């Protein structure tokens, strides 16, 4: 430990000018974060945050390169350095000059804006854990390289692989794989685990043996696993993990029933080539009073009398929807007051061609997110930020015939944020505009900076007078339900 502190002291002495620059940038970020409560648009300065992050990376890389590991000419490699002390010294440097100041910035921003840091303790710790993994990754990269040119080449190489790989994935398997939706936190934690494991192993190998070749193989392997199109965790596994993580409300009463009495509604689906859309009338019952469910993915399995089978995966384009709701962004919200809904699914065109006129058995598996009771805040002022129920700050602006909204919330954003206009003006069937909705809104890990931002596009202002309120809902449960429907003649339910 004494040796680690001695190396750390040397590093601090060496890095003083760079530390000063990074701290200056971090102080500016802290001022912006703290002022964001009064000026929410400051939370949108992602470019500046990126600059701060890049400066932090540069500092960490510089301090590791100060006692460069690859090479055979460094003075320290024949001195009595212990590799554990060296690694510890670099780790302590990261904690002192990156992790702790970031934590301080976030605690300060919370406190200044009236949010209790203690209430956000677990979110803060998750944030720090993510930062620690990121820093470990940067530390490993720095340990494997001798200079900044090599770092830039690695970054460019990774970027190239990312572009080519994503293009390939989009062509091959595309959005089903890429849209992780509410399972994103599981994927994020899994990615952190991979990054920590492989960066940790590479660091250990490189610091203890200075074996750049093998350590680089470990690092690159981890890097390839982290490419976003890999989706190593299957979506349904991730969803089940989410279900065990978030059982805040008992969802056992929620059931699906078929409702053959309804006619097929007006279609708004766009099935891909080789598919046709069907809409099966159903009801979702047992939703607790004031809550809503949101259908994230639906799997359809078809079974014909002659034994022919077809089934879709858990497809994000298959949904249960309330077609009375508009615009499209909120149509998957199901208040569950007994209204008829439609299970809209894209099914195989040839299966429908051969078996569309005969009764087939349909088995549906629906992945739901349950949204808790709405927390509503009446908007009383234009152009001024105001605290909203559900832990956030919103600013609504009105300019001539347009309305804009910008809401920020610390570290995690609500699953659903909606603006409600009252009384209902014409052109706004439900007086609702969704700012953000599940599943994107249900992810609270791996964000960037302290503020999570939801923002509307420019909305046409309803005719005066009207009142506005903001409703937010949190995700309270993830669960799956199944439904069997027999004797379905698919052509009768085909979208017009």
């Amino acid at each position, binding site marked *: 430990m*004494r*040796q680690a502190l*001695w190396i750390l002291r*040397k590093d601090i*002495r*060496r890095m003083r000018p760079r530390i000063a620059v990074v701290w200056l940038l971090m102080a500016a970020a802290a001022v912006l974060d703290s002022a964001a409560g009064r000026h929410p648009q400051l939370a949108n300065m992602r470019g500046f945050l990126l600059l701060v992050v890049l400066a932090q990376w540069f500092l960490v890389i510089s301090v590791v390169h100060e006692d460069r590991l690859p*090479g*055979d*000419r*460094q*003075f320290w*490699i*024949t*001195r*009595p*350095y*212990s590799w554990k002390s060296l690694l510890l010294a670099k780790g302590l440097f990261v904690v002192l000059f990156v992790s702790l100041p970031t934590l301080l910035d976030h605690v300060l921003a919370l406190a200044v804006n009236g949010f209790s840091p203690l209430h956000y303790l677990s979110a803060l710790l998750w944030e720090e854990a993510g930062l620690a993994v990121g820093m470990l990754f940067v530390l490993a990269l720095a340990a494997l390289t001798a200079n900044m040119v090599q770092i830039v080449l690695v970054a460019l190489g990774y970027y190239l692989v990312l572009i080519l790989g994503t293009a390939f994935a989009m062509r091959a398997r595309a959005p089903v794989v890429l849209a992780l939706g509410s399972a994103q936190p599981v994927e994020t934690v899994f990615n952190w685990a991979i990054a920590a494991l492989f960066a940790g192993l590479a660091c250990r190998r490189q610091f203890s043996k200075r074996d750049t070749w093998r350590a680089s193989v470990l690092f690159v392997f981890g890097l390839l696993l982290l490419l976003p199109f890999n989706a190593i965790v299957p979506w349904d596994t991730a969803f089940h993990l989410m279900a065990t993580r978030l059982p805040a409300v008992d969802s056992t009463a929620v059931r699906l029933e078929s409702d053959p009495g309804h006619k097929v509604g007006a279609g708004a689906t766009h099935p891909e080539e080789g598919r046709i859309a069907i809409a099966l009338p159903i009801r979702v019952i047992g939703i607790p009073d004031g809550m809503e469910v949101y259908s994230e993915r639906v799997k359809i399995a078809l079974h014909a009398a002659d034994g022919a089978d077809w089934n879709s995966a858990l497809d994000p384009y298959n949904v249960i929807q309330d077609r009375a709701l508009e615009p499209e962004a909120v149509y998957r919200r199901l208040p569950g007051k007994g209204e008829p809904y439609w299970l809209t699914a894209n099914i195989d065109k040839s299966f429908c061609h051969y078996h569309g006129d005969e009764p087939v058995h349909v088995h549906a598996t629906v992945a739901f997110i349950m949204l808790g009771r709405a927390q509503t805040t009446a908007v009383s002022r234009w152009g001024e930020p105001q605290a909203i129920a559900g832990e956030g700050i919103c600013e609504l602006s009105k300019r001539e015939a347009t309305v804009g909204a910008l809401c920020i919330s610390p570290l995690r954003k609500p699953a659903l944020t909606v603006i409600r206009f009252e009384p209902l003006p014409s052109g706004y069937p439900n007086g609702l505009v969704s700012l953000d909705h599940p599943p994107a809104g249900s992810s609270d890990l791996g964000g960037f900076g302290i503020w999570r931002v939801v923002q509307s596009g420019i909305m046409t202002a309803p005719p005066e007078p009207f009142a506005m309120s903001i409703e937010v809902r949190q995700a309270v449960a993830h669960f799956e339900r199944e439904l069997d429907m027999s004797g379905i003649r698919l052509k009768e339910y085909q979208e017009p």
Partner: protein
Amino acid sequence: MNSAIRTYDLTKVFRGAPALDRFSLDVPEGSIYGLVGPNGAGKTTTIKVLMKILAPTRGRSEVLATDSRLLGPRDFAQIGYVSENQELPEWMTVRYFLRYLAPFYPTWDDALERELLRLFQLPLDQKLKDLSRGMRMKASLASSLAYRPRLIVLDEPFTGLDALVRDQLIESLLARAEGTTIFLSSHDLGEMESFASHIGYLEEGKLRISEELESLSARFREIVLTFDAPPEPPRELPADWLHLEIAGPVVRFVDTRYHPDRFAELARSVFPTYRDMAVNGMPLRAIFVALAKKGREAR
């Protein structure tokens, strides 16, 4: 006597080309061992393997009775390594460099550090990057002597230094040689001759000679035989005689196993008619030139 360094069939291959070829060496504790050889012979590679900077391809080496692949902080606290190619932390001043290193060594001697600084006249507040090559070597040497290492390893320490600085460094090394093993590489045979106790000659990765300098100098002699008339070349020569040249009535050669009691008789048996014989001692340079020529002839 114990060995400070031992190698067993040490082999290092770079991209298929052997830099060290089954190299076996024994450096006695307390000796001043000079590893000499032409450029590219493998001297620096040997030292890098010994210092755990490179891993051997085959064979093994021991430094202070520890496998060199396993050298750790405790071992390096007893080893002083100085190389002409070493990258020093250029931003540090001489003072900070020494103060930074001191806590790493339990045996660091502040009084000795002061003495070395005085001896080398090092500018304490100057950054290492601003020092001349000679001064950098002095700073590096001071930082490797101040903890009284059991083994000092020097890789071409005197290359490019002027004679004055070189003598100063050699003097300071010799002053601290008692009880310390010094292992140094050089291609400058003259300087090696002035203070090495043992010599190893490395050529193309192979250790051709490794012995005490005294015995090496004693057994190599340049012989000049003078005749009344040009002699007939002998049909057969002793294997230990190298580079026989006949120029008129004068014959020259190198005897690699010279023995004063037996030589006259041996010479007479090969050249019965010689009139005069001169036996000249050979400087190290001449010995290794003779060996190098022999190597070339053999190839």
